[in-house]
């Protein structure tokens, strides 16, 4: 096991991309709160302002819709944040996107050179152009192969739930050399204001995150665990220790936490402590002892008539 995956195995809780991932100092707080690694905001080749506001809204308690639109300062302006992260000994996964195979690779290599411990390939943002990659197994293969070829550090590929068959995309990524998979990115969604009768987000539609998508993400994890051999990081609606444990049982090697962290910087510590409590109460030594345990049961395949 590489150094990076050893660190993740020790502390299988990771900050998800796009939440409090602009500045090294917020990521530092989350790392200090017990995360094994942080994923930065998705970084592209050039500065990008993204969509106008409203772009992030809480639509139900703990459930959010966003269309940030991959706003980011561009990799060259972000190098200093990566260096700060590394100076603070923070295990750093840089989330990367581009507008072509070349730019994806360029950004990933620049992040690697700046000291990133791993790269997470964002091919799955539902409200940006790049989402076409994750909807096509051939494109996924080509992008992953190309980026992987230039990397010495692990490559994680982040997948979208907004596809017909997430399994074939995951297989494609694995075949192309991905070292791990993150599932899932946000779920395509829309909210309409009934007074003005118009969509609320400036972009119209966006991605759903938080509590409402947790069961969707658990099901994707359950399905993916049967299909791929590389580690899968579960992501979507982890707000409590129970939510995290569900992911491990479905097959996650680690969980990513995003939306829940808006509450305060202690949120991640509370989730981790509560998940550890479960291990203690049930006499397990580590999270790896429960990975995939939900697969041990036979479920009813055909309905009773």
């Amino acid at each position: 096991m590489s150094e990076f995956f050893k660190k993740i195995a020790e502390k299988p809780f990771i900050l998800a991309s796009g939440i409090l991932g602009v500045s090294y100092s917020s990521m530092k707080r989350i790392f200090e709160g017990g995360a094994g690694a942080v994923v930065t905001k998705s970084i592209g080749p050039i500065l990008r302002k993204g969509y106008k506001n409203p772009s992030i809204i809480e639509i139900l308690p703990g459930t959010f819709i966003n269309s940030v639109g991959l706003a980011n300062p561009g990799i060259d302006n972000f190098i200093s944040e990566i260096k700060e992260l590394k100076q603070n000994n923070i295990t750093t996964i840089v989330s990367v996107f581009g507008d072509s195979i070349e730019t994806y690779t360029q950004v990933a290599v620049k992040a690697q050179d700046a000291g990133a411990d791993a790269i997470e390939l964002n091919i799955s943002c539902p409200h940006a152009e790049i989402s076409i990659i994750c909807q096509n197994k051939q494109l996924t293969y080509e992008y992953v192969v190309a980026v992987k070829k230039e990397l010495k550090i692990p490559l994680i590929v982040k997948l979208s739930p907004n596809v017909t068959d997430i399994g074939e995309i995951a297989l494609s990524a694995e075949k192309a050399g991905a070292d791990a998979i993150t599932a899932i990115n946000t779920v395509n969604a829309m909210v309409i204001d009934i007074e003005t009768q118009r969509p609320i987000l400036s972009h119209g539609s966006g991605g759903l995150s938080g509590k409402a998508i947790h069961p969707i993400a658990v099901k994707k994890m359950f399905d993916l665990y049967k299909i791929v051999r590389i580690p899968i990081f579960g992501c979507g609606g982890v707000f409590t220790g129970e939510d995290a444990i569900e992911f491990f049982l479905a097959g996650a090697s680690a969980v990513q936490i995003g939306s829940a962290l808006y509450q305060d910087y202690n949120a991640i510590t509370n989730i981790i402590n509560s998940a550890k409590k479960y291990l203690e109460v049930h006499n397990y030594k580590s999270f790896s002892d429960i990975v995939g345990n939900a697969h041990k049961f036979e479920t009813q395949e055909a309905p009773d008539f």
Partner: protein
Amino acid sequence: MIKKPRMVQISEIVQESKDVKTFTFNIKSILSNYSIQYQDPTPGEFLMVWVPGIDEIPMSLSGFNNNKDWSITVKEVGECTEMLFNLEKSDLVGIRGPFGNGFQIPEFNFNNQLNIVVGGGIGMAPLIPLISELIKLKIKIIVIEGVKSKEEIIFKKYLKNYLIENETFYISTDDGSYGYKGFATDLFNSIIEKEIEKGNKINQVYSCGPEQMMYELFHICEKFNISFQGSLERMMRCGFGMCGLCVLDPSGIRVCREGPILDSKILRTCTDFGKYNRDFSGKKNTI
């Protein structure tokens, strides 16, 4: 708290100066239509104000009352504020919030304390409900309003209902067209020295305005060992602590959540204060 943007009807518009207007709206209908739990706002909290089709921007509450009439006071500076300026009475505007921490206000008047409130231009907006609250608590205050020129003075009539000009309420203009000629920071310095000479103890300074002004005020307060609270402005996307755009280095403090009101203790550790902010992409720039 209103979490999803909700449309309210503007009930009153007051022109405060050439490029500043106060918009008032009643939020009772939102609360009842959408069964939203109500909590009284705290002075210093802000709303995200949505002009459909244009943008959604942070605006401090410049007033609120028991009838649940809320107001914002807006300076026209760009696209979204210009569109707000085109709105008329009865037009709809979207709001969510209030967000942020609000000022820490002493619970009662102890030891005959003196508090000083310093606003720079449109920075007076969140200070108005604060001043009302301090007056209600019978805390002795001095208010300083600093503007570039006479035409920019706002809320003078309102403040003169409670305070006496050149005793407890001062105006400074950079060009000397009204009141004290010079920066609010210089006026503040001389007032402090005078009060200290008189043997008065200043417990607390509250401020909102251009960051350079607050930066200087903070350092004057440090010199005199007076605790300071300033309302900071940073680019805001979510307004409730999720996106990380408004984070300050190196503490990780989120201006939209742990702020916008930050006190001396936090400002002392903040390397961004008075120096750097971020644009909408997240790129760090010098102020």
